[in-house]
């Protein structure tokens, strides 16, 4: 299945080649975890980000436990401040 992932701010530079402006579809096997999905996006380890899954923030410690479902929407936000 293909999962829609949106990367905001500077994170979009790490989208896989061929993606649209800040969105991409990432294929995930049935039963794949959120962690496995995120590993397919080449964001360097020193770039922190927040994961929003279907409108809810997911804590880092839960990435491995969450199973991705068809039609899930994943949004990655850079934790910037100020402004």
């Amino acid at each position, binding site marked *: 299945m293909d999962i829609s992932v949106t990367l905001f*701010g500077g994170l979009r530079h790490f989208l896989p080649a061929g993606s649209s402006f800040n969105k991409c579809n990432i294929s995930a096997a049935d039963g794949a975890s959120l962690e496995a999905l995120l590993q397919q996006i080449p964001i360097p380890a020193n770039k922190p980000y927040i994961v929003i899954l279907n409108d*809810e923030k997911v804590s880092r410690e839960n990435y491995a436990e969450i199973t991705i479902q068809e039609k899930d929407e994943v949004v990655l*936000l*850079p*934790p910037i*401040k*100020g402004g």
Partner: protein
Amino acid sequence: MAWQQQILRVNLSNGSCAIEPLNMEWAEAFLGSRGLGSKYLFEEMDPAADALSAENKIIFATGPLTGTMASTGGRYTVITKGALTGAIACSNSGGKFGGELKMAGYDLLIIEGESEKPVYLHIEDEKVEICDASEIWGKTVWETEELLAKKYQDPLMRFAGIGQAGETLCRYACVVNDKHRAAGRSGVGAVMGSKKIKTIAVRGTKGVRNKDPKAFYKIVNEVNARMTDRDEMSRDGTLAMMDVTNGFGSLPTRNNRSVRFEGANKLNPEAMHTPNENGHTNIVTNGACFGCTIGCGRICKIDPTHFSVKDRPEYHGASGGLEYETAYALGSACGVDDIDAATFAGFICNEYGMDPISLGGSIAAAMELFDIGAIDESTTGGIKLEFGSAEALCQIAELAGKGEGFGVDIAMGSKRLCEKYGHPDLSMTVKGQEFAAYDGRSMQGMGLAYATSNRGACHLRADPYGHDFETTEIEGKAEVVRDSQRDVAFLDSSGLCLFPGGCGWGLEDYRSLVDAACESDWSSDERMRETGERIWVLEKLFNLRAGLGKKDDTLPKRILEEPADVGTGKGLVCRLDEMLPEYYELCGWDAEGVPTSETLQRLGLD
């Protein structure tokens, strides 16, 4: 020595101008800019005096690092009793004015009394004169700057002044310098207007010394090398935040009825960079303040075919564009997704001298009053003040700037406006100051930061961002807010900008710059924290003497009782009542939010 060790005191009542030595004991205790200016204000005026009376003073304060080679070292602060809030106001600005004032030889400019006739101040190093302003009174900020620039024929002269909004005592009139940089918040421009001082023209030719130039420049280079994400900041500016808060669900929308705006993608960095159907691109380039190596400023153009500027070529040029806060206040807060209309309203703010956050917040409140039928077209002078109306936004912005028609009500600020029309709960303010672009339900720490901010609702008095984006649980929020209020007070007092903190600098980078530039030993974290806390508590003491107390450390009913509709904080209200007692205790204040005698003693404020 990074301080010039001089202050300039101007008394508008008797026309005197005097150069005085800086109180170095106070400089050692309060550092500079925000802290030092607040100390002078606290010692010299009765906080209970009316903000718009001759008893109020207005102080333009530079920091020890203002005018140095440190990146972003161009900041200055305007400190006074706020016309919008009745609390201490300290409004920070960049641009080039602050550096010029410092180069003229002054750490602080203190303006006191009030003039009978409109005047402006002309400063060229030690030469200081109070000049007749009859030819520029009634002019916009931009016209004033152009007329005086022509008169003095000095391209390096800098200006900080008011437009018609300040003259007509709009409660959130600001002080604009360099045409589109502003000491924006709390109505500092109305205080200038009440004193009938139109602008300050300054030219300085002195340098700024520091303790050990060689060591200082070495550290400047080292910390510059540690800056990261500069490209992002110069490309997108603070507007990058819009996608983050919208995605997270903390972007205040339609007077905080919602926390997500369906039109955010028409106001975000991509909208700014993408040509519209006419081939017009909003952004022209980025801009930087004095000595800044980031350059987060937006220089933008309005589509010349847009209804707001059609047949008005004076608005076809490039000028200061939408930052995140402006895009929220003149965009999502009003439900407006028209980037040209929001840019136009922003231009009007710079031209007439208004704080765009408070203007947008006031218009948003008026739109809700219109929506529920508390006001109608007979009140607004025929304007259909509906949420989402770009036309209404542009019309009302101009009326508020000029102090005409329904703009007079909008210029009161949302608190006075909502009280006037019988719905005080619809004002999204703290201490009378409109919210910045974060909702305190999904960002609980920000809710606490707004409620306890000494200058009224503000996103720049604390730094709860990281913790808030991590969790909506309230554990730890009080500590994060308390610690960061203290740290930000120190940074603001240095003369540097807060934004390098979002581009890789840590507190130790700021501290090492201060230590290399200033006499005495500033190398310890302890001194940095204690200085920041001393400044924060001094501001609190000013407010207590002004009559503000625990009752003012609160949030609007909507944020405390109406759950957020979508996003990460869906179903949550701000749990302020649980966080506030812990916050007071951590601060060393009693249950009423009054610093205890031990706290005052520890900080040397007894």
